């Protein structure tokens, strides 16, 4: 699965990509030198727990994707089968959860995790 992340990062010039479990546990990662994997993983876990929990309490159910835009970057979190793909991008890249590259990587990860489960 690291190969999928590496290819994604190279294709869209991302700063890093992770695969996290629904409970926030880190499964695989590929990040640029200087990026903090632990903090990135914690952000993914935080979004899954806090945002997911908040939606559940409001009766809205679960989410399929989250896109966070900040002053200096963008973070995308999308469903990838039983896991989530988290991608960290620069501020001005016009790429989001709907981009072909991210959706393709998510599908490949979903297939790989389904295969591993079976």
């Amino acid at each position, binding site marked *: 699965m690291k190969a999928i992340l590496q290819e994604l990062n190279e294709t869209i010039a991302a700063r890093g990509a992770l695969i996290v479990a629904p409970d926030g546990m880190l499964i695989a990662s590929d990040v640029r030198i200087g990026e903090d994997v632990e903090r990135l993983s*914690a952000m993914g876990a935080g979004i899954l727990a806090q*945002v997911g929990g908040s*939606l559940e309490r409001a009766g*809205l159910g679960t989410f399929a*994707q989250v896109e*966070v835009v*900040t002053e200096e970057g963008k973070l995308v979190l999308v469903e990838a089968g039983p896991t989530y793909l988290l991608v960290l991008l620069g501020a001005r890249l016009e790429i*989001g959860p709907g981009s072909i590259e991210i959706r393709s990587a998510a599908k490949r990860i979903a297939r790989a995790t389904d295969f591993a489960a079976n």
Partner: protein
Amino acid sequence: MSRLGEYFSGRSLESVLKKARQKLATGDFEAALRAVAGGLVRFPEAAALRDLNLSIMRAQSHAGMQDLRQRVTTHRDPVAFEQLISMYLETNMREEAMRMARDFATTCPESAAPHVILGEQSLQSWFRDLQARDGHRAHGHLMRATELDPRAIKPLLLLAEFYFCAGALKALSVLGRTLEQIDPDHPEVLPALEMIADHGDPSASENLDGSLAQIELEDCLANEPTSWPAGTARRTGNQLTEERTEVVAKQLVRDGVADEVVVLQRSGTPLTHARAKQTERATRGRRRPVELVTESDEDGLVDVVRDVAHTVSVQARELDLGAFRHCAIEGPFGRVVVGRVAGGVAGALRTSRGGESNRLWERIAVKLEGVSDGSAS
């Protein structure tokens, strides 16, 4: 004038954006900048206009930046460093500016200039988000700048503003004595010395770490920067009112842009909560009915907006991603957008499919920013 009239007369925020984008698309940068400048006079807080202004300036500056990058890379020229960083900041390429400033500090360790830049940028981040970490960074860089160039006025003035807003009145008093010794008659120093005479307290007992932690916790400065002589451009307060946001929230729901809209103050206190009435259907030719939600047990979306804004803001800061701007969450329920606008936080739920989340957020932000200038109808 009706809103339709405003749109066709070119006076609405939407029409200004449209005109400027058209000029940018044709490569007429000067005309695009003029259109935006005219719009900013009327809508000074409109982030969409400011962002568009930066995009135009970036496009226009592209060639100049390349030349300076070459000089920095090949000759490590301090003047080129400063000019390039300045261009990056003018076009809001903040990540690049900070990276270049750190490179500058490493390349020219005896130069105060990069530390003034890094200190000022950290100070701006601190004013925006009140995070202690930014305050410490700003203080560290500005102190280093004063060590490298003890007679430089700018870092001393920035430190004075910082101490004033942090309530570090003893440090402010000490710094005032330094400014008096260097250049008491400087036009920028004089008003600062007057403020220091009024507010500095050489006998105060203080701890800067504790002050910064308390500011972060309470989300409130000891003294507002607008009181400082050069601080009028800094604003940390809320610019939205209940009356105006109610008008906009109802309009957004009535027009079908969103099914439910929430607007909160920076502190998380709800200002407005509007949603489409569940029991009535809009008939053809009539806009759909809207109700204001006042019962606290129906605050589901309010809690979502508040939780999302807080969680993502904190996480983004931990990752050094800068200030949180907006967020889009999609799922079987539709989509929820949450973002910071005009000093507050807004969120919306749209259950119908179709459209892009970024476009939904932009429509909400533009409406609310237009309201903060008093142009809602």
